[in-house]
């Protein structure tokens, strides 16, 4: 049995890229795009499945033109076939609109398994995976730390992480699984593969909308971007040890953050 596995990938600014709030309506983001970390975990997990089973692998991205950077990373890591959805303005859309574009293409690809990162490294919505599954009317499991497939029975065993607990689930295919850290350890591709990926063919695919989904503006409107509140300058406790530690305890007592008052744990 050959299984079709599609990995959803997203480009995000590198976590060291400079990001400035220019105005309430505009961000200035340094153009250093990488594949989102959790999507790399999903790619690695897909490659591991390909080693264990007969698997046809596709990586799929939607979003801005920078999606190419994430897809090239997928190629460098070892995924042969990559597709980019052709649709304008997805970068300004909500998670549901992006999920809709992806689900529309996935309906055509008919995967047995869809893998993605548990959240994007930019908006951190953690929404597109579960939404894609719902729109495709297939089950999903989020934050997976292990995944094994039984192709003969068209089933899967998934372990998901939940606040200090590991939950084991049994489920049939098709299925969508989002990757938590630990599902796989993404490898850094060798330079020759990165170079080769720069020339790889990226298929741009049009999509027929699955549903008549209204535009993002019908659901929500962004009012503004804001810089985060700034922390006052650090107060260094400079008395010689152990006096500085006593000062620290006094300061924490004054700040009201020591246990015992008001807030039982």
């Amino acid at each position: 049995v050959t299984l079709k596995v599609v990995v959803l990938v997203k480009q995000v600014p590198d976590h060291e890229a400079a990001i400035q709030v220019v105005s309430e309506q505009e961000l200035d983001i340094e153009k250093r795009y990488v594949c989102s970390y959790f999507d790399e975990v999903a790619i690695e997990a897909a490659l591991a499945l390909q080693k264990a089973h007969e698997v046809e692998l596709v990586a799929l991205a939607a979003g801005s033109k920078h999606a190419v950077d994430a897809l090239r990373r997928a190629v460098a890591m070892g995924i042969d076939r990559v597709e980019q959805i052709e649709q304008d303005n997805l970068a300004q859309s909500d998670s549901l609109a992006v999920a809709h574009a992806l689900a529309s293409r996935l309906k055509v690809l008919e995967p047995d398994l869809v893998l993605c990162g548990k959240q994007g490294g930019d908006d951190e919505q953690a929404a597109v995976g579960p939404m894609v599954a719902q729109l495709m009317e297939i089950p999903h499991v989020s934050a997976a730390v292990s995944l094994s497939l039984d192709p003969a029975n068209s089933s899967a065993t998934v372990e998901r992480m939940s606040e200090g607990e590991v939950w084991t689930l049994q489920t049939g295919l098709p299925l969508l699984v989002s990757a938590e850290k630990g599902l796989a350890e993404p490898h850094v591709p060798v330079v020759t593969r990165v170079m080769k990926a720069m020339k790889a063919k990226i298929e741009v695919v049009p999509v027929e909308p699955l549903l008549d989904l209204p535009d993002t503006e019908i659901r929500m409107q962004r009012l503004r971007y804001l810089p985060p509140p700034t922390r006052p300058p650090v107060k260094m406790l400079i008395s010689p040890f152990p006096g500085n530690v006593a000062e620290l305890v006094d300061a924490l007592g004054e700040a009201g953050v020591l246990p015992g008052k008001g807030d039982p744990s």
Partner: protein
Amino acid sequence: MSPGEIWVVAEFRRDGLTRVSEQLVGAARDLAAHKELTPLAVLIGGEKSQAEELTRLAPHVLWVDNPALTPYEANRHVVALSKLIDSRGAPAAILAGASAAGLEFMPGLAARLRAAYLSSCTRLWWEGEQLAVRRAVFGGRVYEEFVVRTSPAVLTVRPGAFPRPEPLTSPGELESAKPGSTEFEGPKVTQTRSTTSGGRDLSEASRVVAGGRGLGSPENFQLIEQLAEALDASVGASRSVVDAGWRPHDEQVGKSGKTISPELYVACGISGAIHHVLGMNTAKVVVAINTDAEAPIFQSADFGVVGDANQVVPELIRELGRK
């Protein structure tokens, strides 16, 4: 469809009702009071005692009493909630904690309802007749604010964003609903096991003590555990010590780990790489202990001690003991 209610989907774990569920009941009470709405705590599956516990805080509790909905499973949760909307009408908003479960079922519910979904909100308020939210993006380097235009608005909220509400003076009303079907397709939970020693999970903790490479060895993490005990705190770790195998993944604070907003965060022997800071810079009070006075962690701290954590932490435990 009359959007006359605000729902909070309550979550219970091993150690009881989650704090974020409590906080959300308080938030729903406040939001509802401004618009003559009814705050409703919704319990999907679970036990009657849990529904009764909710009546301490919520003036109205709806318990979907169906054994097939226990234990929690995301796809079933979505079906149960959308059936509830079919029978009761859509509320103005559905709120849940941004926990592993909340982040799993709430986007699916929003997609099924074609509703607005925003996750990990840190503030909710009314902007005229519309509900508005604030949330952090790019690891807290930028905040964004939205107004939400669908009924319901489907929102997850970060633990610690709202205070714990006062209990009601008299218990709320408990109503139970029996959904027609008890058969659900989809994944089945076959096992759950704990990976921690039983302490409160990081994301819900009021206080967190975290350790990094500066501790020198995995054995020295005992000091972190002891300080955590003295402070009634949970234990966190930097990426480098998790990657080195000193600590489990679910203790990692940072960009590829957890984003947390405790009242107190004590960083011991952590240099403060941007990766780490992105996970903790919304903490209220930050203490940094590091041998290097130039370490970037001090720029993200309120109080700084230059010194070896292996020396400072035991003294700190002693000093706390004297109080």
